[in-house]
């Protein structure tokens, strides 16, 4: 599943951000999952923990939070969410899952029909913050 590639990216980015600090300094990684990409949370969590288990870090440090997707039309300024993006087929949802920008091929502004809109939030996977121990050598 392609959740594994994204989980791999999160782990690699967290490890890089920790830098030369001792692995035990890392207490938590807060991850934001964009609604648009429709990541399978269970597979993603399992992938994060499995990849992490190959490294010297404590288990259970990932905290996942979902961010709702929202769009804003450049033509008429209408803002809308994914529930209002009607008529998307299962295959199109799958395409958006793989490449969220594919949404621009399938979704149109529900007010004016324009293809010219921005995805304001809720795209894909982001690291929100790292929680690092405040003991000496970790800060």
């Amino acid at each position: 599943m392609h959740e594994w590639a994204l989980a791999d990216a999160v782990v690699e980015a967290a490890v890089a951000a920790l830098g030369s600090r001792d692995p035990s300094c890392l207490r938590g990684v807060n991850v934001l999952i964009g609604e648009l990409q429709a990541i399978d949370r269970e597979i993603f969590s399992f992938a994060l923990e499995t990849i992490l288990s190959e490294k010297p870090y404590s288990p259970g440090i990932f905290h996942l939070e979902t961010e709702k997707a929202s769009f804003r039309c450049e033509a008429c300024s209408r803002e809308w969410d994914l529930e209002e993006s009607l008529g998307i087929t299962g295959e199109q949802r799958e395409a958006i899952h793989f490449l969220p920008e594919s949404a621009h091929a399938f979704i149109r502004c529900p007010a004016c029909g324009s293809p010219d809109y921005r995805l304001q939030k809720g795209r894909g996977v982001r690291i929100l913050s790292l929680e690092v121990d405040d003991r000496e050598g970790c800060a």
Partner: protein
Amino acid sequence: MSDPRGAVVAKRLAGIRRVIAFSSAKGGVGKTMCTVVSALALAGGGQRVGILDLDMQGASAHLFLGIRPRLPEEKEGILPLPVTDGVSLMSVAPFTGERGLPLRGAEISDAILELLAVTIWGPAGLLLIDMPPGMGEEILDLARLVPRLETLVVSTPSAVSVSVVERLLSVLKELRVTVPAVIANMVQDNAGGVKDLARRAGVGRVFEVPQDPSIETALGNPGALVSSPAGKALREAMLSLGYF
């Protein structure tokens, strides 16, 4: 808040020996033809070649290759579409089909980063990237994310093409992107100002690819593309550049 995807780009490209972008500041000079036919020629010589079509708004490598876009398979990432022996392809076409994809700049960058972060190329020896015209997000992002990127710059002998492409060569120099050669494509009598252009830009090599009407009828037929006059010229260029 940070974007984790950049952290795995080098890892995804680790099995690839060379990453070569076919670029031009001018549209319609034959970048896609040069990319696809070079990939087919290299595969014919035993190389494993990935093609990454980064032309988000005009993806067409699949049309040259004669493959119908379909959603990719997943295996700890997404797998490029197998094309023919030794050649695989990734682009936006597997996701959008023949629909238009109107994207603004930041979203183009997001799509590029996503494709680089989740595509599992495997042990492809070479990755050939078909670039859109211009010097926007695609080349700027690649230069930042793929430090060992090298670029073959494509121009026709047209004075207009030469002038616009010279600006790209100047920017590539500032980006410190290696340019092993300029490809003079659609040459009828001679390469025109392309040789002088390369000399001015400090690019040591120019390869001439003839104007080739047979390419249009060879679309979708890899064998015919490689055996065309343009295909033979590109094969010689790849050989001379040491990509085999």
